[in-house]
């Protein structure tokens, strides 16, 4: 951004701009005077002052145009009055000259998407149309009228000469001046030595050709188009390699050469009548300039389109790479790899991913990547160091700071931290998920003098991708947590609580029975036993036994009653829910779980949690059974269907080793397991839960290998 682009100028800047306009106007006029064709009256080959004003009006915001006019006016008066013209003519000429600049700059500003650039066909055509044609032609009507009415000169002669001269001037002066000023204000990068060498070579070739052509050295008599034959390839060179600016410089240089040689009476143009020779040179250069400028614009546009495409492909490559990272790598590594790719793509020194946590969503660095130069930032407490910046980011704003001066006065802490950390540029983008800020990604440039060309759109796309990856990871953690909770409940809470309660409540009667029986034996052994006493003991033993039986019955009732809220449940939805719970487990174990659901909805009546626990248990068993098999065999299929007896079947099949011989009979006993870490409770609990639903569970080995578990539950009416 230059001050000119911002639209507001400080008084000092305005004064400088005015001074620059005045100076340029003066220098331009002096150049014009040197290029006057003596024989053609007071007319110059080029008359730069008008174009200087055009340049000023293009660069300076419209609201400051008056400064340009005000700066040019005294210079104009000084020069023209000095040349001995009448004050009326001088004043009117200033108006017509300014009208040319207004038409040119106004037209360009009106129709060009970027008035100070000439690098697309559209921009060049607008420039040529407004500044190259409309402005000189229209303003020359007024100019000729002034000369005709006040000085009595022939109207159309004046019009013809002025139009031709001003077309060439606008074409040759405006692009190079505008681009030059812009480059100077923006501190454009130094061109490479190779490019400078090429420019020098082109300039030398043009100078040589100019001397050959306009100096009459190469005088092929009777072959007028000779000059173009020599100059055209060089102009093509300028157009293809140096753009509109190059063509502009070449025109300017060639015009000088032509003027110089013609002033010195050299051929070929000197052979023509003076005014005709002048116009011939102008027409020749103008006619060559128009198409070449368009060609240069078109080439720039194509070059830029190609570069854009290359950049877009590179960026899409980045997105694909990151996305692939998140699919193929385990969660931790995927973020590290992802940030590395982001950092390399944007050529950053440090990339950090912060995640919100806790009740008030405080941000903390979760993952980071850095170049050696970014190492000092590792472990930095960014959120504390940049309270203003992260406050804005938490509010959903994107921040970009190129230099400490980018912080507003209220962000004093941030500004100081920016300097202390030695940052050059930084960008922080919020990671939004569901409309809330779930985190942030920060890119930092540390290398002194580096100005990152970070594209805002690309940054926000990357942020979106990272946000969705974070959200997905969050969801995965959520699912994993609830799955583990459910599994733990099944294993410890549910059955564990039951066994603890069983153990506790059965201890008392068992202790009583044991003591009583032992006492009876001792009395008998000692010969002291009496029948009433023994009877009393036996009655107590029977009572205790009854008590133990009651405990067991009560526990069974509790188990049956627990959370028992029978509802109509879609069997396919149950399987889907379980599928969600086991999905991450399946990925980790590399097990393919295939679902073969009944095409129509089929319903059972029961408790969702209970039935999901049963299914979860059976499917997890199946996955464990195949976990050690070769990958092609790590397949578990879950099928739902109705059988002919009004039951809904859930059939879970794996390609594991199957159940060992004779295991089927013991399968449902508690504490019987084939798994090294199992408690052997799963199937026992499953059967107990299914009993409550009037359902059954059947296990078998499949003829083709693997185990097949069939759960059958009476079907509920479809329209309950």
């Amino acid at each position, binding site marked *: 951004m230059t001050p000119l682009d911002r639209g507001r100028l400080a008084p000092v800047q305005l004064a400088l701009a005015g001074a620059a306009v005045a100076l340029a106007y003066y220098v331009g006029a002096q150049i014009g005077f040197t290029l006057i064709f003596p024989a053609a009256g007071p007319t110059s080959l080029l008359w730069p002052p008008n174009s200087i004003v055009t340049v000023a009006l293009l660069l300076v915001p419209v609201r400051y145009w008056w400064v340009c006019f005000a700066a040019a006016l005294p210079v104009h008066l000084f020069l023209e009055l000095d040349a001995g013209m009448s004050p009326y003519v001088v004043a009117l000429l200033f108006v017509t000259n300014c009208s040319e600049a207004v038409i040119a700059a106004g037209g360009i500003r009106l129709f060009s998407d970027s008035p100070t650039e000439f690098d697309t066909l559209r921009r060049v055509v607008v420039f040529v149309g407004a500044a190259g044609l409309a402005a000189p032609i229209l303003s020359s009507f007024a100019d000729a009228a002034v000369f005709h009415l006040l000085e009595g000169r022939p109207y159309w002669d004046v019009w013809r000469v002025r139009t031709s001269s001003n077309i060439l001037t606008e074409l040759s002066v405006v692009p190079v001046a505008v681009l030059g000023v812009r480059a100077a204000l923006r501190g454009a990068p130094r061109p490479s030595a190779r490019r400078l060498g090429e420019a020098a070579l082109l300039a030398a070739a043009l100078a040589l050709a100019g001397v050959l052509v306009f100096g009459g050295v190469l005088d092929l008599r009777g072959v007028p188009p000779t000059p173009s034959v020599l100059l055209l390839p060089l102009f093509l060179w300028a157009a293809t390699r140096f753009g509109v600016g190059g063509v502009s410089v070449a025109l300017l240089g060639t015009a000088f050469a032509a003027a110089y040689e013609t002033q010195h009476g050299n051929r070929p143009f000197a052979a023509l009548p003076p005014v005709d020779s002048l116009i011939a040179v102008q027409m020749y250069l103008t006619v060559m300039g128009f198409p070449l400028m368009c060609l240069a614009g078109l080439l720039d546009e194509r070059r830029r389109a190609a570069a854009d495409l290359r950049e877009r492909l590179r960026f899409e490559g980045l997105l694909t790479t990151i996305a692939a990272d998140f699919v193929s790598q385990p969660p931790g590594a995927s973020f590290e790899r992802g940030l590395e790719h982001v950092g390399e793509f944007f050529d950053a020194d440090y990339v950090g991913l912060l995640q919100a946590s806790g009740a008030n969503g405080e941000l903390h660095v979760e993952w980071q990547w850095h170049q050696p130069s970014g190492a000092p930032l590792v472990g930095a407490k960014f959120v504390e160091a940049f309270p203003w910046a992260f406050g804005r980011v938490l509010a959903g704003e994107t921040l970009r700071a190129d230099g400490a001066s980018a912080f507003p006065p209220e962000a004093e802490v941030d500004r100081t931290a920016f300097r202390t950390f030695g940052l050059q540029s930084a960008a922080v983008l919020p990671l939004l998920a569901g409309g809330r800020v779930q985190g942030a990604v920060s890119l930092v440039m540390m290398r002194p003098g580096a100005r990152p060309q970070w594209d805002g759109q690309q940054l926000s796309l990357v942020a979106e991708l990272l946000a969705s990856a974070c959200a997905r990871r969050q969801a995965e953690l959520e699912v994993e947590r609830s799955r583990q909770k459910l599994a733990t409940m099944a294993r410890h809470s549910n059955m564990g609580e039951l066994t*603890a309660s069983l*153990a*506790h409540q059965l*201890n*008392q*009667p*068992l*202790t*009583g*029975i*044991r*003591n*009583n029986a*032992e*006492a*009876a034996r*001792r*009395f008998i052994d*000692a010969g*002291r036993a009496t029948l009433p006493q023994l009877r009393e*003991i036996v009655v*107590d033993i029977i*009572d*205790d036994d009854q*008590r133990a039986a009651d405990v067991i019955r009560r526990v069974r009732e509790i188990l049956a009653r627990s959370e028992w809220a029978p509802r109509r449940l879609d069997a396919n939805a149950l399987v889907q829910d379980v599928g969600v719970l086991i999905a991450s487990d399946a990925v980790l174990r590399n097990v393919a779980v295939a679902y073969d659901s009944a095409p129509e909805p089929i319903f059972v009546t029961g408790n969702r949690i209970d039935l999901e626990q049963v299914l979860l248990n059976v499917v997890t068993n199946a996955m464990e059974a195949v976990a050690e098999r070769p990958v092609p065999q790590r397949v578990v299929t879950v099928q739902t269907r109705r059988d002919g007896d009004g039951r809904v079947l859930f059939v879970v099949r794996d390609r594991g080793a199957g159940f060992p011989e004779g295991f089927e009979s013991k399968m449902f006993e508690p504490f019987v397991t084939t798994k090294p870490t199992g408690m052997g409770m799963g199937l026992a609990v499953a059967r107990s839960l299914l009993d409550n639903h009037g359902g059954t569970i059947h296990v078998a080995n499949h003829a083709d290998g693997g185990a097949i578990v069939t759960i059958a539950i009476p079907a509920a009416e479809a329209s309950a």
Partner: protein
Amino acid sequence: MSSTPTVVVIDDDLSVRRSLDRLLVSAGYVVVACSSAHEFLALASLARPACLVTDVRMPGMTGLDLLETIRVRGRDLPMILSSGDGDAATSAQARAGGAVRFLLKPFDSADLLAAVEEALDRDRASLARES
């Protein structure tokens, strides 16, 4: 029969209390059965030698509370604690409080009787020291 040792049984469970009473009587002890620690503490006097067999988990004062109370009151009464849930912490607490033995329900009668005999031996020894 002043030499017949006394075993106090404290258990809130009637069935356990009665069966322990019988078992200890069958082994030849005098048994005083209480349904709570407070009931025991309210007893006027206790013939020596004596020991105490108490449940840990009881409403009101627990077996461990009783162990502590007796120790604080300076009474040297050997105690055997028993409980249905035998977590290591309870067992360690019982030992630290000076219990002769910690038995896990349901316990083997022989283990109980051996523990009772050991406790009584200890009480006899302290009786001998006191005289």
